[in-house]
């Protein structure tokens, strides 16, 4: 048992520092993806709610595709497809040029598309939960459409969307493990490297699982606080008046 724990030490004989670096990269990847995914998700939700039929159809297709595809497949398509696409474009300018797509960016792009597809449904439901009178009142006050969205609709939408978005975040964090397949040195891959050297798969993968679990627990603590804060203006039936 002590031998196993020694394998986790920081320093030249232990894998603690490598695994910690991998864990850090996993968090970085998830946090980088988050703003892109949510921004795109919100845009897609607005497109689904728009008057234009073409926009609605495009947004619906987007969600159907990226919610239906396995995340692993999306990742491969973005990574290899991006590589080929960029190389072809570069080939027009420089004969025989090839471009390596950065794996981290490919990971962010693929996970961002999936996150956008799932979060757009959450945003859409939240958008519809804000009564139409709110928008009308904002218009009556003379707010521009953008300001009405920013000051009136969005803060209310946020409150309703938060539980669903928390869920999306949890799923995203677990999905980041897939990027190890395209050779990003995230937690999963660093663990695999440690396993390759030490021949202790059960122990190291268990440690990796526990680190992911720790991330989940930490996130849910933060998100519960955020939900309480988003709901601070709301009174509910029952309980203390």
């Amino acid at each position, binding site marked *: 048992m002590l031998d196993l724990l020694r394998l986790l030490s920081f320093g030249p004989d232990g894998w603690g520092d490598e695994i910690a670096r991998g864990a850090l990269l996993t968090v970085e990847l998830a946090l980088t993806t988050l703003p892109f995914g949510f921004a795109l998700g919100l845009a897609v939700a607005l497109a689904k709610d728009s008057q234009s039929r073409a926009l609605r159809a495009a947004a619906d297709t987007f969600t159907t595709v990226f919610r239906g*595809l396995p995340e692993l*497949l999306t990742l491969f398509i973005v990574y290899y*497809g991006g590589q080929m696409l960029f190389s072809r474009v570069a080939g027009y300018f420089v004969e025989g040029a090839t471009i390596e797509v950065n794996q981290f960016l490919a990971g962010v792009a693929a996970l961002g598309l999936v996150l956008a597809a799932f979060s757009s449904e959450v945003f859409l439901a939240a958008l519809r939960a804000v009564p139409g009178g709110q928008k009308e009142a904002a218009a009556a006050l003379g707010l521009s459409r953008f300001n009405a969205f920013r000051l009136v609709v969005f803060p209310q939408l946020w409150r309703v969307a938060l539980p669903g978005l928390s869920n999306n975040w949890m799923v995203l964090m677990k999905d980041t493990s897939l990027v190890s397949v395209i050779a990003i040195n995230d937690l999963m891959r660093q663990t695999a490297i440690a396993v390759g050297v030490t021949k202790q798969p059960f122990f190291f993968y*268990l440690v*990796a*699982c526990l680190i992911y679990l720790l991330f989940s627990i930490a996130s849910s603590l933060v998100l519960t606080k955020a939900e309480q804060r988003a709901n601070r203006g709301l009174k509910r039936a029952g309980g203390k008046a």
Partner: protein
Amino acid sequence: MIMSLLAQAGDGFLWLMSAIGLNADLMDRYGLRFLGGIWVTLQLVFLSVGIGAVLSLPLAIARIEGGKVARSVSFGYSYFFRGTPLLAQTFLIYYGAGQFRQPLTDIGLWWFFRDAFNCAVFTFTLNTAAYQCEILRGGIQSLPVGQTEGGKAMGLTRYQIYRTILLPQAYAVGLRPLGNELILMIKSSAIASVVTVYDLMGVTRLAFSRSYDMEVYLWAAALYLLMVEIVRRVWNVLERRLNRHQLLSR
């Protein structure tokens, strides 16, 4: 006779595919492998979701009716499997089993864990059982307490109350989330390809590594979308049929 008909149908299909601009040569070479891949994916999904459904019932009931120990075991189980990535769980079991080869041989289970497909089914089963347990628990706990009380007043035993009153309603409540779980498993089953299972994703990766033609990924995308869409449609029909008593009130 049948063989020649099949061959002609295949030729016709390939001609159609090249007519819409796809690579018929490539499809001729890998088409049948793709069908095999779909079959493996379907086996993975239906075995694990089916066995997972059987496991989820005692887990959910332990969570509601059990004592302190049973409750916390069930809670810890589903927390672990829902809080960690399926890829990590698959590695834990597939590579972890290799480490315990001797003890597994001693108890006569090594033949099972030696095969990547079995390990994938085993992991997916444990994983989906955790999710299904939560769906079922949510369904049971969403029912008003009067349902249990009514059953007791009629002199039903606890088993009868579950079998005839609570579970049918809980499954009706959980029908949609269970469908979503089935779809999630179809998608997640692609992870099996990472541990050398030739499911649809595995076949696709093989074909890509040999041909280096992006088109195979698009075939896979179309096939996955098709499977998901079929489940979605079937589930809509199922829901309309099984929950038809609620349709009037909507």
